[in-house]
């Protein structure tokens, strides 16, 4: 129980520092957006690239 509570507190602290913090969230949002675009574009290229071929 104590360990679980400590883990929950750590998760809350991480969430507060990375999401609720305005400055950190601004950068994290940009990072997630760029990383998502990169991964999604590779996925599209490998799976649906043939549709864009001529």
């Amino acid at each position, binding site marked *: 129980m104590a360990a679980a509570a400590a883990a929950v507190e750590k998760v809350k602290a991480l969430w507060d520092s990375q999401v609720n913090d305005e400055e950190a969230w601004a*950068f994290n949002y940009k990072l997630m*957006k760029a*990383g998502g675009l990169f991964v999604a*574009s*590779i996925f599209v*290229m*490998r799976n649906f*690239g043939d549709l*864009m*071929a001529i």
Partner: protein
Amino acid sequence: MGSAASAAAPPPPPTAQPHMAAPPYGAGLAGILPPKPDGEEEGKKKEVEKVDYLNLPCPVPFEEIQREALMSLKPELFEGLRFDFTKGLNQKFSLSHSVFMGSLEVPSQSTETIKVPTSHYEFGANFIDPKLILVGRVMTDGRLNARVKCDLTDDLTLKINAQLTHEPHYSQGMFNFDYKGTDYRAQFQIGNNAFYGANYIQSVTPNLSMGTEIFWLGHQRKSGIGFASRYNSDKMVGTLQVASTGIVALSYVQKVSEKVSLASDFMYNHMSRDVTSSFGYDYMLRQCRLRGKFDSNGVVAAYLEERLNMGVNFLLSAEIDHSKKNYKFGFGMTVGE
């Protein structure tokens, strides 16, 4: 009678022996023939599967590790009018004239974009020989660009880049020594302001190559080290670059067909906390080439090169930056090769 019987006895054994020996010999031959092709096939399969690590291909230069991605994602976008004319005087010597009229973006502290109308004329002279290339450019604003590429030996190449300006302390020069080995490349750079750099790239497998670079800026008392790797096959190229300056760069290019290539890259700068990702395409059609991209910052760009005639190309360039409300459009022509 006894002698007759003794004379009859010897013949049977020698005749029996040859008969006995013939079948095993024939069977032996028959047994040898079938395994040969099987063995050869197995050998071929093994050759296909086995990698000859002593005969790896030569990797691409370290500075060109992302060349496929750059071709698609970083076209030569411009704004305004652009006209390039190249006249060949003979097989090796040619002159070029370039005119540019457009707006130049001035960096400003505010979010608004400030542009200043500008124009310049550029005169160039080119000397191209299989072993020596000389390129010079002079602009009306007083800048001079010069490039030299000389093959000292079959494997050693010297490159010189220089940019001279009338402003004091703004001229730059760079010497590059490129050495090409059987399965590796090495480069040493010397520049002004006490700049020294070196890089080395090695093929690890027929598809994978890894490299490292180091540089030193004497006047700024800075040094850095970088690492790069590249994996390429017939259809795809993937690269990874990491540097101690805080830069992480990933790129991926997929060749969909002979005419279409798709590319994507991811750039992260820890010092400026800037991160950008972009996706681009490159269509090589019969009479034109169309390249475009969009990135995570809301920038959409396209670049079109159309061949109107032999040696005459029509250029269209467009770039829209939605976040900064910066819109650029350019058109131009290229005459001559």
